[in-house]
């Protein structure tokens, strides 16, 4: 049996108040839900933390709802639930496209949107969507609830601005204006970690975000400005080189990622351009 996993302390919260009370007194506990990231780290000895609080059974953190302006997605909503949701299909189809490409069904049944955010991997597939949709993170602790703009949620590589004792309970997503577009490029079409991931929104203005090309998800502001002010796609591709600075790592190279990111930008532009003929 594995040895890297010794001496885990695994508290099992059955209500949100239980979870928050525990996190208030033991803020070093890592919240655990679908385990699709944490247990990879544990199985391979990459995670040194040994104290966890399992929040998987908190049904109050599940579900998708909408009002006139926002979608609200509970932090523990799984990819499968998003794939099957009529609300997501209607207002955030790029999230459905994205969720279908995360892992296989086995992982989609367990992985949660809150976990994708909290894990903060630069390759997190939902993160470019939340960046272009300008989502708000709802974080709760015993001392109250606060809304954190998604675009200021990461302070650096896998670093979030969550305070000790705070738990992500939901995200609020303003109904996105314009055409939505999502693509990921990995080793294979599904069930692979992204080498480059992009979400785009094309309405009166253009919003673009890339993952796997920097320490956190990146909004491509210069590229957006070029396209929003009527610039050409060639100018936008040039601007993109100032927005993102991909690195070489085990999954890909800087050069490949830059080329793919530019190609994805062109593909986004082509496929969201209304048919002129």
């Amino acid at each position, binding site marked *: *049996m594995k040895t890297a996993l010794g001496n885990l302390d695994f508290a099992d919260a059955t209500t949100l108040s239980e979870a928050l009370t525990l996190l208030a007194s033991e803020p070093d506990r890592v919240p655990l839900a679908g385990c699709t990231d944490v247990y990879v780290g544990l199985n391979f000895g990459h995670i040194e933390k040994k104290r966890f609080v*399992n929040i998987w059974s908190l049904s109050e953190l599940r579900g998708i709802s909408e009002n006139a302006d926002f979608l609200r997605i509970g932090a523990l909503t799984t990819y499968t639930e998003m794939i099957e949701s009529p609300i997501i299909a209607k207002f955030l189809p790029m999230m459905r496209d994205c969720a279908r490409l995360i892992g296989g069904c086995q992982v989609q049944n367990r992985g949660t949107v809150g976990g994708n955010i909290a894990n903060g991997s630069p390759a997190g597939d939902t993160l470019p969507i939340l960046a272009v949709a300008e989502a708000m993170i709802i974080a709760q602790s015993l001392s109250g609830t606060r809304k954190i703009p998604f675009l200021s949620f990461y302070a650096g590589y896998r670093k979030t601005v969550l305070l000790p004792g705070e738990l992500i309970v939901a995200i609020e997503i303003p109904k996105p204006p314009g055409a939505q577009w999502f693509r990921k490029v990995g080793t294979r079409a599904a069930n692979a970690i992204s080498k480059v991931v992009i979400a785009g929104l094309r309405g009166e203005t253009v919003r673009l975000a890339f993952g796997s090309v920097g320490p956190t998800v990146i909004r491509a502001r210069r590229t957006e400005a070029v396209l929003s002010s009527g610039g050409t796609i060639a100018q936008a591709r040039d601007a993109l080189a100032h927005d993102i600075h991909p690195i070489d790592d085990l999954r890909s190279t800087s050069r490949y990622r830059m080329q793919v990111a530019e190609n994805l930008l062109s593909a986004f532009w082509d496929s969201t351009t209304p048919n002129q003929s």
Partner: protein
Amino acid sequence: MKKPPKKPTEAETEQPNSISDPKSTSPYRGWTRRGFLQTTAGLSALAVTARTSVHADQDVSKGSLPTRSGPAETPLAFELNGVAVSTQAEPRETLADVLLYRLNLTGTKIGCDRGACGACTVLVDGATRVSCLTPALDIANRRVTTVEGLTLKDGSLSPLQQAFVNHDALQCGYCTPGFLMSATALYTKTPAPTKEQVVEAVSGNLCRCAAHSHIIDAILSVKNGERP
């Protein structure tokens, strides 16, 4: 609760019919790999067997949740292939660990141990899960189905299993239990899937022998639950 007698291992019951020659001896050749591993696990293996009991008369769905904390073992009760199971698990153990090492159900395979290959796929409350990333304690009072649970009551293979045989849908077979579980879950939701739906349903399962096309054919051949 009475502890069941320790079942003899394969190695203990097996009569070696091999010979001694310059390359090896008869007793050495008589070991099966699993029997060897079980026996050399020594006292800890005996302890595991003694601790684990399987009985059919306990309603796990109404049981109260166990207090879960570590690092020591805590009791774990769940329904496995239609039978109530009580065992023990530490928080560090995954569902795959418990199935393989505590319950000695070797059908579930660990391939990558990181949720990327699907070989360890099982059903929890009817939905596919990678058992290598599922904490064992998280399945308390839930319903688990493994490949061992697919076989029909008369001992014959399920239509899906038979279809894999008929379509030559495996070479080494290590990925097969995972594919069977993913396909079983698909048929529960979608009785007459299209090829596209089949491909998506098994997109989390990898076959390194590259038998994918035969696997897809096999899964499609059991449309509407008909025996191929």
